[in-house]
C-alpha cells in the first residue's frame, strides 16, 4: 500500500486546508441547525472558549494542542514513509507509562537528569510499541493497519492495568498514579500560564522534521520510499525495509512523547483515560496539515482550539462535546473530497495544445 494522499506542494496544501475548514464550518452549521441548536451562539462560545483571550488561547488551546502536535507529527512522518501507523493512540499510552514509571522510580535524581530520562523513556516506550507492528510488517508481511489498531487496545489496557496495579497511587483507592516529583515536571514555557516546555519541544521536532524532509538524505529516502517503494529500490537502490524500520520506530517514539509530555507537563500523574482519542485525531491533524511539519503545527493548534471551544460550547450553549468528533470527521472528509476533485481536474484532458 502506498500513501493515498500525495503530499501536496505547500501552497496547494494550504489552499486545500482552508477550503476544507470552510466546507466543514458550513456543514457543521447546517448539522447544528438540524439538531435544533443555534449555530451562531455555538460559534460564539466556541471562539470565546478557544481564542477569547490571550490566556484562554495559551492556557487552554495551546495546551490542548500539545499532544495533538506530537502525535500529528508522528503520523505525518509515518504516512510520508508509506507506513499506515494508526497506532499513535497506543504508542502515546506506552509513552505515558514509560515516562511516569521513570518519574516515579528515580525520584532522587536532579531535574537536569530526571526530565531528559522521563522524555527518553517515553520515546523508547512509544518506539517499542511500534516495534511489534514494524516487525510483523517487515518479517511476516502483515499489514500495519490492523496490527497498530490492535496494539492501541493493548496499550490502553496496559496503562489501565498500571494505574490499577503496579503503579497505582499509594493508598490504592483511585485509578491513577502518585503525582510525580517536582524534578520530573516540565517547566512552564510562558510563565504564569499552563503552557509547558513540551509545546516548545514539539515545535523543535517539527522544525527538525521539516529540515530532514527537505535537506537530508534520510528525509529524501523516506519521501522516495513513501512515494514509490519500487522506484526507490530499483532506481535509488534504497532498501525500503530499512527506511520503513527507521520511520516507523521514530514515529512511535514521537507519539510516545505525546504521552510523556502530557504527564510530565500537565497532569503530573497517569490516569486511565489520559487521551481523548488523540492518537486518532492526530490522523486528521496530519492529513489536514498536508503531511508537512509546518502544516501539522497549524492544524494541531486549530484542533486544539476546536477541543477547547467544544468544552465552552457544552458549558455555555449546552451542545454536546461529541460534536467536535463530528467536526473532525467532516474536516477529514472535506480534505479527501477536495483532494479528489483537485486530482480529477489535474487529470482531465487539456483539450487544446500540441502533442
Amino acid at each position, binding site marked *: 500500500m502506498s500513501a493515498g494522499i500525495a503530499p501536496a506542494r505547500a501552497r496547494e496544501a494550504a489552499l486545500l486546508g482552508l477550503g476544507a475548514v470552510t466546507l466543514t464550518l458550513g456543514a457543521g452549521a447546517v448539522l447544528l441547525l438540524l439538531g435544533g441548536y443555534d449555530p451562531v451562539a455555538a460559534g460564539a462560545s466556541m471562539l470565546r472558549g478557544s481564542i477569547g483571550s490571550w490566556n484562554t488561547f495559551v492556557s487552554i488551546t495551546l495546551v490542548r494542542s500539545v499532544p495533538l502536535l506530537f502525535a500529528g507529527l508522528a503520523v505525518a512522518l509515518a504516512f510520508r514513509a508509506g507506513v499506515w501507523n494508526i497506532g499513535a493512540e497506543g504508542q502515546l499510552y506506552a509513552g505515558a507509562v514509560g515516562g511516569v514509571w521513570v518519574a516515579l522510580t528515580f525520584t532522587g535524581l536532579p531535574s537536569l537528569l530526571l526530565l531528559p530520562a522521563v522524555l527518553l523513556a517515553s520515546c523508547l516506550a512509544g518506539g517499542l510499541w511500534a516495534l511489534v507492528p514494524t516487525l510483523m510488517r517487515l518479517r511476516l508481511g502483515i499489514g500495519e493497519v490492523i496490527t497498530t489498531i490492535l496494539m492501541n487496545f493493548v496499550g490502553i489496557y496496559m496503562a489501565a492495568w498500571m494505574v490499577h496495579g503496579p503503579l497505582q497511587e499509594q493508598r490504592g483507592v483511585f485509578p491513577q498514579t502518585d503525582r510525580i516529583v517536582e524534578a520530573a515536571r516540565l517547566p512552564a514555557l510562558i510563565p504564569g500560564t499552563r503552557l509547558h516546555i513540551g509545546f516548545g519541544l514539539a515545535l523543535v521536532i517539527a522544525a527538525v522534521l521539516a529540515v530532514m524532509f527537505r535537506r537530508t538524505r534520510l528525509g529524501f529516502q523516506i519521501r522516495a520510499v513513501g512515494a514509490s517503494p519500487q522506484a526507490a529500490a530499483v*532506481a535509488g537502490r534504497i532498501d525500503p525495509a530499512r527506511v520503513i524500520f527507521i520511520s516507523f520506530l521514530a514515529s512511535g517514539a514521537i507519539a510516545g512523547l505525546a504521552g510523556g509530555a502530557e504527564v510530565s507537563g500537565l497532569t503530573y500523574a497517569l490516569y486511565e483515560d489520559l487521551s481523548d482519542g488523540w492518537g486518532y485525531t492526530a490522523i486528521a491533524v496530519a492529513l489536514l496539515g498536508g503531511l508537512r511539519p509546518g502544516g501539522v503545527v497549524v492544524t494541531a493548534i486549530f484542533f486544539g482550539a476546536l477541543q477547547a471551544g467544544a468544552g465552552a460550547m457544552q458549558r455555555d450553549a449546552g451542545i454536546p462535546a461529541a460534536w467536535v468528533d463530528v467536526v473532525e470527521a467532516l474536516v477529514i472528509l472535506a480534505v479527501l473530497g477536495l483532494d479528489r476533485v483537485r486530482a480529477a481536474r489535474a487529470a482531465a*484532458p487539456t483539450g487544446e495544445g500540441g502533442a
Partner: protein
Amino acid sequence: MSDPLVRLRGVQRRFGRVQALAGAELDLHAGEVHGVLGANGAGKSTLFNVLGGLLAPDAGSLEIEGVQTALGSPRDAWSRGIGLVHQHFTLVPALSVRENLALGLRGRSLTEVGGVVEATMERTGLRVPLEATVSAIGVGDRQRTEILKTLLRDPKVLVLDEPTAVLTPEEVDGLFDLLRELAGEGRAVALVAHKLDEVLAVSDRLTVLRAGRTVLTTERAGASERALVAAMVGSGVADEIALGVHRTGMKRDAPARDPSAVVGRLTGVTGERLTNATLEVRAGEVLGVAGVEGNGQHELALVLAGRVRPAVGVAQVPDEVAFVPQDRRTEGLVPDFDLTENIALALSRLDRFGAGPLMPWDALEEEAERIRTRFDVTAPSVATLAGALSGGNQQRVIIGRELALGAQMLVAENPTRGLDVAAAAYVHGELVRLAAAGLAIVLVSTDLDEILELSDRVVVMTRGRIVVVPGNERTREGVGALMLAGRSQTG
C-alpha cells in the same frame, strides 16, 4: 461489398498531451480477417480499445450493422456482439482458468458455463487446463484462455490486439487457422500484430494507421509490402530518422575489441524464474536477450543490474550498473517527484555528490539541468513533475540519469515499449552509440526485430533457461525455433 458490420469514422482520442487518435477510420465486414498495421504509437491499441468499449472517443462515430452507436463500457460492446482480446492479459491471477472463463460468461449459472466451455474448447481446439490457477500457468495458456474467454460469448465481431506476441511461431499458425475458420463462419475478425508478415499471412484486407490517422485501406491481394511499409512510416522528418536508424545505423561492423574484457558474469544463477543461468557480458557489445514475456527475463535483468542478489549461483556484476527498467512509472521514476528529485534518486549515492547527511540539492539541480539539456528532455524546467512528461521524455530522463552513473554496463528492459517512432529511434541510437563507446549493454526485449537489429550476440530465455543463439540462426525463424525447443525440453 455488403454493408460493414462495424464502421468507425473520424475517431479522435487524446491522452493528456498526446493525440493518440486523430481521425481514424475502420470498416469491418462479415467474413473477413482484417489486419490493422502501424508503427509503435500509431494508435492501433487505442482504436481497438474504443471498439471494445474500454475507452470513450473524444470525437467520431461508430456504426454497428448500420446503427449509430455509442459504447459506454465493455458491457455495451459485449451486448452489441463485439469481443475484444486485449493486448495485456485481463485474467484474474488468483482465480482458476474455469472461473476466469465463467467470468467471461457473466450472468449465466456456473453449471451452464461448464457445458459451454467444453463445447467451445472442442469446437476451437483451444485446450486449456481448466482447474489450474491462472497465476500458475504459462503465457501461452493464458493467451489461449483469453481468446477462449472472448469466443465463449460468441461475438459477431472479434477484435484481437497483439495476440501473437507471446506465442511461438507454431502456435501462431494454429491461431491463424482458427481465425480464418471463425471468419468463414460469417464473423468479422480484426487483428493487430506487430509483425508485418504475420498480418499479411492471415488478412483479407488491411488498414494502416499512422499518427492516429487511417492512411490506407486496401485488399490484401492488391497491396505490396513496400507500399504498406511506406504507408506505415510516412515521410515525416521523424520517420526519416527512424528509417535511417533502422535501415543503416544498426548494421554496424562488429567493433574490434578485447574478447577478454568481461564486464559481467553470471554463473549458475538459480532463483525465482531463473534456472542455472550462466552468461557473460563483454565491453562494447550489445547482448540481446529475447524471449516470450514472463520467461525470466525480468528476473535476469534485476540480477544483472545488481538489484537482486541471487539465492543460488554467483553474479559478478559491477558495483554500479546503469538500469533502464521495463516499467518506467513504477520502477524507473517517482511520478510525484520533479526531475531534480528523480535524478537525485539514483545519483545522490555517487561519491561526487558527497557523503554527508545533507542532500547536495544545488549540485543535483545543476546535474538535472545538464541532463535535461543534453538529452533534449521536453520539460519547462527541472522542477516539472516526472509524471507530467510523455513516455519518451521520461525514458530520456532515465537514460540520461543512468548514464551519469558512469557505469561500465547498461541493462535496458524493453526500452522502447510504448514510445512513438521518433522516441524509439532515439533510444536505439543511444544504445548503439554507447556500445561503440565501450559500454557493455544488455538489451532485454520481447521485440524480436529490435533484438536482431541491435545485438552483437543473442540469447533466448525460455522458462528461466538461457539458450545461446548461434550466429547462423540469428533470424526470426531461428530464434523462434529455439524458443520452442526450450519449451519442449523443459516440458
